[in-house]
């Protein structure tokens, strides 16, 4: 029983990271039709900025230092993503293949640059001591960082929904996902929404970067890419452009992965996720939910 509880809660923690990456991917794809291969790079940039700030901040105790470093990481990730949209994606509007190719190139460059400067080794992040302790739930000892991951993802889910449903820009984004040409025809500049969506995606990905530092205790240059692949699977299963669907799919994928890895053998989790994707696509080619930013 305690193992099952541990697996479920760890699965939710992993799902939280998948959701944070996938929600940005899903919004960007839904609105702009760009499959963003640089999304893993946003995560890398955010997590390395966090780690780097932390090593440079001496003299204060661990907890505030980590919070401060995380805030810097988030800011850097957001600004980086917005710049990518403005500088690299904007000149290629309407040329989807080229946009995808540029994000592929950017993903390669950022990963290579990170490993050139800071080597391929994982870097340890000093974390507040609270995160290393465990809490007992129904006989299972749950590492405390899992709660933080789940809570963060829940807040982001709530905030995104609020943004999409209650604000004017959210309305434009939702309308743009539905029918971009019509929104443009109504005289609304969708391009500002593009930059906004990229910034939000970058923020969420950088947040995932910070949380992955909590989850694994380290940052490393390849993590963005490896998490990105599962985020892609989550996005496709959840239905492109749908935040609610993405959240459900993230949890389902992470749970399937955790349980298969534990009860079958390690590596089986990844295979079962792929199988899940194949089954979902065969039964419902458009994912679990129809495309609409809800």
């Amino acid at each position, binding site marked *: 029983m305690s193992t099952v509880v541990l697996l479920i809660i760890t699965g939710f923690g992993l799902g939280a990271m998948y959701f944070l990456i996938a929600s940005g991917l899903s919004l960007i794809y839904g609105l702009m039709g760009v499959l963003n291969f640089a999304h893993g790079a946003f995560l890398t940039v955010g997590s390395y900025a966090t780690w780097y700030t932390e090593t440079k901040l001496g003299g204060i105790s661990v907890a505030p230092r980590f919070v401060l470093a995380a805030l810097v990481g988030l800011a850097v990730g957001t600004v980086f993503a917005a710049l990518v949209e403005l500088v690299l994606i904007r000149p290629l509007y309407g040329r*989807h293949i*080229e946009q995808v190719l540029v994000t592929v*190139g*950017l*993903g390669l460059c950022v990963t290579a640059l990170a490993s050139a400067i800071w080597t391929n080794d994982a870097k340890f992040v000093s974390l507040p001591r609270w995160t290393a302790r465990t809490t007992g739930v129904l006989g299972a000892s749950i590492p405390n960082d899992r709660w933080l991951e789940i809570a963060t993802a829940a807040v982001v889910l709530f905030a995104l929904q609020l943004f999409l449903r209650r604000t004017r820009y959210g309305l434009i984004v939702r309308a743009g996902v539905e029918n971009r040409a019509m929104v443009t025809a109504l005289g609304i500049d969708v391009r500002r929404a593009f930059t906004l969506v990229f910034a939000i995606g970058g923020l969420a990905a950088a947040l995932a970067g910070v949380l992955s530092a909590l989850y694994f205790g380290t940052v490393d240059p390849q993590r963005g890419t490896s998490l990105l692949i599962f985020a892609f699977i989550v996005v496709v299963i959840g239905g492109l452009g749908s935040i609610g669907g993405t959240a459900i799919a993230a949890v389902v994928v992470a749970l399937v992965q955790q349980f298969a890895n534990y009860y079958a053998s390690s590596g089986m989790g*990844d295979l079962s996720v*792929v199988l899940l994707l194949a089954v979902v*696509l065969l039964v419902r*080619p458009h994912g679990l939910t129809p495309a609409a930013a809800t």
Partner: protein
Amino acid sequence: MKRLAIPVALVALLAFAPKLAVDIPVLFKSSLDSPGTLQLLALMLTFAGLAFTYDLLFGYTGLLSFGHALYFAVGVYVAGIAMTRWHWGFWPAVLFTAALGIVLPLVFGAVSLRVGGIAFAMVTLAFAQAGSVLAFKNPGVDYTKLPSGLVGILNTKHLYWLALAYAVGVFLIGRWAINSSPGRVWQAIRENELRVEVLGLRPFDFKLMAFVLASFLATIGGIVYLVLISGASPEVTGPSFTLALLVMVVIGGAGSRWGALVGGLVYTYLDHRLADLAGSHAISTLPSVLRTPLQEPLFILGLVFILVVYFAPGGLARLGRIRRRPAALEEAL
């Protein structure tokens, strides 16, 4: 005939390369007939052929697959495992792998081609990821039973000829397929799939045909690679390897006659030689801000790739010519 003259002369020249004790100072470390240089040339040719198989999908049929590495990995791993674990001879292993190189893409292609565009890219990516997970679980494969002419440092020239034969073979088969009537349908699908459907053809069948052909040729490439490296490393199974193929094709020029081959040669060359060039005097005297990124081949290649996308959309093959954009590739997404 005139158009044939230059390529034929080039292939003949390449075929004689192992007999030429010529030094090419900056480009290669040692003379042309030395095993080190031949090995690099053989790798370049293998990847050139491989890039061409990817171009069949991406450049000619408009299918953006992120799982092409899987079929290459099938060639490397299945042949390797058949020889080392199952103790099969060389030829039975090759035949079995080749057969698998038709059956697997037939099955996986039939599943993934049910969806188009981005979803297709994702499904192929997922299948390749699954293959990569399997490979990383049992990474060790080394050779035992290669024919004696393909083993040993003195026989590097045979490996080189094998790679040359692969590149030329893939190119000839590919060109023949592209110019055949199904090949014309592939290009029509790339241009406008709906229209092909309206004309009464089933795009699915033709896409599957292209998928199986490209994957089969990639599997053969995997066997050539296994022989060449006499071993396998799981890096060639991952999605980043498919991205490398995509980079080769785009740098060279997607859907053009020589593009993929040129891209494969240039990419592989840079990937192996940039590290050496970075150690050269000109670069080691630079300040570390510039030096560090320049030592990372993938950084340079990524940068070149982005620059090509912006400033030379036709790739190297179309540099300097009037730009005839494959507008149709837009439709693929």
